């Protein structure tokens, strides 16, 4: 082990990490799954969803934005953290309108998949019934903000990967919305359907038109295996 690699433990499992890795990245590489929603492996972590919050050295912090360090003691898969994460997933479900049974993303939606994985049945909190208009001004893409979870992936992807800065936030608190770089809607921006920003949405807020049902319901990513299975498969000695 050289100076730049070290180890920490998560739920009693020893994980090797290298300098510059976040706790989440190190655990992913080691095949230990920490539930997360806003994080995307190709994009800088924003820490908006807080699903990956773990107890690290006794403190509640988000694993995606916490640099891994030698000797950390981390709790991840505990009843309390699972309950908190489930409560958080519920909050997303009631904040927006998420009609899974007839949503284009069903089976491919990370929010839905986390709901299943964390054991959410039906939200116990009251629905907020947002009423954002759909932005269909773009010929190839539509935006359904009622399904937006404000993860900031598209903002980051558009700025850093596409070099366009098509997206941004607007407002604050519960009134915060995804905003686009033109008063006339998405159709007046530089956005193209091939942009990275169009493919990183974890839910069905950004949807490419005429492209939705190429894979039938029932045969999609999370229909086959629970979210996180791909990461857990990397664990040495893992049996599916």
């Amino acid at each position, binding site marked *: 082990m050289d100076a730049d690699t070290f180890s920490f433990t998560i739920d009693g499992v020893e994980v090797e990490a290298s300098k510059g890795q976040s706790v989440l990245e190190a655990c992913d590489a080691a095949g230990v799954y920490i539930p997360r929603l806003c994080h995307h492996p190709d994009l800088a972590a924003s820490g908006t969803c807080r699903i990956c919050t773990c107890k690290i050295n006794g403190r509640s912090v988000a694993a995606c934005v916490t640099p891994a360090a030698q000797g950390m003691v981390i709790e991840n898969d505990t009843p309390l953290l699972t309950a908190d994460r489930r409560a958080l997933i519920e909050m997303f479900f009631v904040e927006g309108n998420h009609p899974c049974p007839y949503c284009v993303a069903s089976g491919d939606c990370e929010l839905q998949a986390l709901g299943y994985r964390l054991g959410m049945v039906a939200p116990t909190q009251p629905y907020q019934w947002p009423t954002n208009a759909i932005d269909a001004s773009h010929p190839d893409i539509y935006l359904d903000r009622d399904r937006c979870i404000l993860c900031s992936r598209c903002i980051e992807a558009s700025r850093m990967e596409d070099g366009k800065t098509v*997206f941004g936030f607007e407002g*604050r608190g519960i009134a915060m919305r995804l905003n686009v770089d033109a008063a006339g809607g998405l159709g007046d921006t530089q956005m193209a359907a091939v942009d990275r920003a169009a493919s990183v949405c974890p839910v069905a807020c950004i949807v490419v038109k005429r492209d939705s049902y190429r894979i039938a319901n029932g045969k999609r990513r999370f229909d086959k295996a629970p979210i996180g299975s791909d990461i857990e498969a990397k664990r040495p000695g893992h049996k599916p």
Partner: protein
Amino acid sequence: MDIVIAVQQRLGHVSNAAVQTMAAGLGIHPVEIEDMVSFYAFFDRDPRGRNRIRLSKTPVSFIKGAREVARAFEQALGIQIGDTTADGMFTLQWTSDIGLADHEPAALVNGIALADLTPADVPLILAALRQAGETEPLPSYPPHLSDAEHLPKSVIRSSLVQAGSLLSGSPVRAEGLKAALALTPEAVIEEITKSKLRGRGGAGFPTGMKWRLTRKATGVEHYIACNADEGEPGTFKDRLLLMENPDLVFDGMTIAGYALGGREGLLYLRGEYAYMWDNLQQVLTERRRLGLLGANICGKAGFDFDIRIQLGAGAYICGEESSLLESLEGKRGSTRDRPPFPTERGYLGQPTAIDNVETLVCATRIMEKGAAWFTGLGTKDSTGTKLMCVSGDCERPGVYETPFGITINELLDLVGAPDAQYVQFSGPSGQAIAPKDFGRRIAYEDLSTGGSTMIFGPGRDVLEIALQFADFFVDESCGWCAPCRIGTNLLKQGMEKVVAGRATLADLASTEALANTVVRMSRCGLGQTAPNPILTTMRSFPELYEARLAAASFEPLVTLDDALREAVKVQGREPVTEEA
């Protein structure tokens, strides 16, 4: 930030055209400008009235008659709160606490503070504003000192009721600074460390250690930022210090700059305190003239330091240090994840120490009087004195300088509140305290505080007040992280059901569980403390919740009448009641 403030002043709002122009000028995208502008309560995207009347909305302002004042404004202007008059002359709004809890009801009119309002003042204020005319450009912002002269109730009497050894004996400008400059920077930090001074914002981080960490961190520049975003409802000590002892604050910043090796200090002044702008700038000018700012300060060769004031624009969250840094950099005031801490990477990515106004005043006096003077006051782990801001149901509201270690009871005796039933201690982010706990001590060891002390007497509705505080956090959540953004809103709705007497035992349990999730999962101090008004009133006043419980085992959140309201409106007919 300054560009947007200037646009808002000139046009009265930040128009789409202005956004385009700014984006082109700065070489960034309009969506990035909108991201920032839409965050702050004092920026508008749509045209508003020429005169902006913002009434302070807090539980304390309500018990002092803010609703009656609001009604007088509504009647005189013929509009509802939140609206603008048809002639475009006036916009009337509520705003979060403006730092005048001892002078409620209070308001900001075009940025000028008006205190101790009564409904009878309303016609006089409106007449003065109308007289100012329509032909001139829009009212200046930040307002000039002279702008306040024609407005009634614009003179605020001093809030200082009791001075202790920090503020007594008319402190002399630059005395502490000169004492510090006679030492090496390391010796200054040593002296502050010996004094055991801890941050006065409430978190209580040791100041000496903060300065040492900042000094040690590598960077091109090192900064000292003074946090004058005093937004915690019920706090107003920084207003007092900045209005009456600005030199002690600037001395403290300069001492810190010397100690940690900085050349620039930043004072982040909350937008609600814009009326202090002129005076503070005059003090800075005077200090530059006296050689207390600029090159070779006080003749100390090689010590160059100056101070810039950054005005905020209405966002409680900017008092959180990482959010303050984002705002200083001209962005939306969302918090940052730590590490890295500001002492390593703060303003513009450089090592930055962020200190409370009161902390810097303490540092100034410690340099002048010595660490031993400071450790001689207070308790073992809470040295010195604390400026307590007392408001609400008491005879003598105001700022009291008290040594650490006194009990709530002793403070209540001092301010004349013998029949207090409930004390909201350290603001809504602090805790609700019932009489059985009035024997507890004010110190970092027991009850830590930023100073806010709101007192509520017999007959006040504790649960209604808790709901108002919950509503405050809904308004002030930055929205970045989900637990705080969504959770504060759900908590408020849960509390509304409690106050309406419709919450069941299961509802209470669900609200409490949700509150604890928000505490554990939120990114920053705002979300982590936002559930406190609910959680701590549940703990301190369980009997009040019990008394308000619904008898049924289940009560829907929405009543049948409410659920049908939309249908009733569409159909134009009322449902028939069963008994008929």
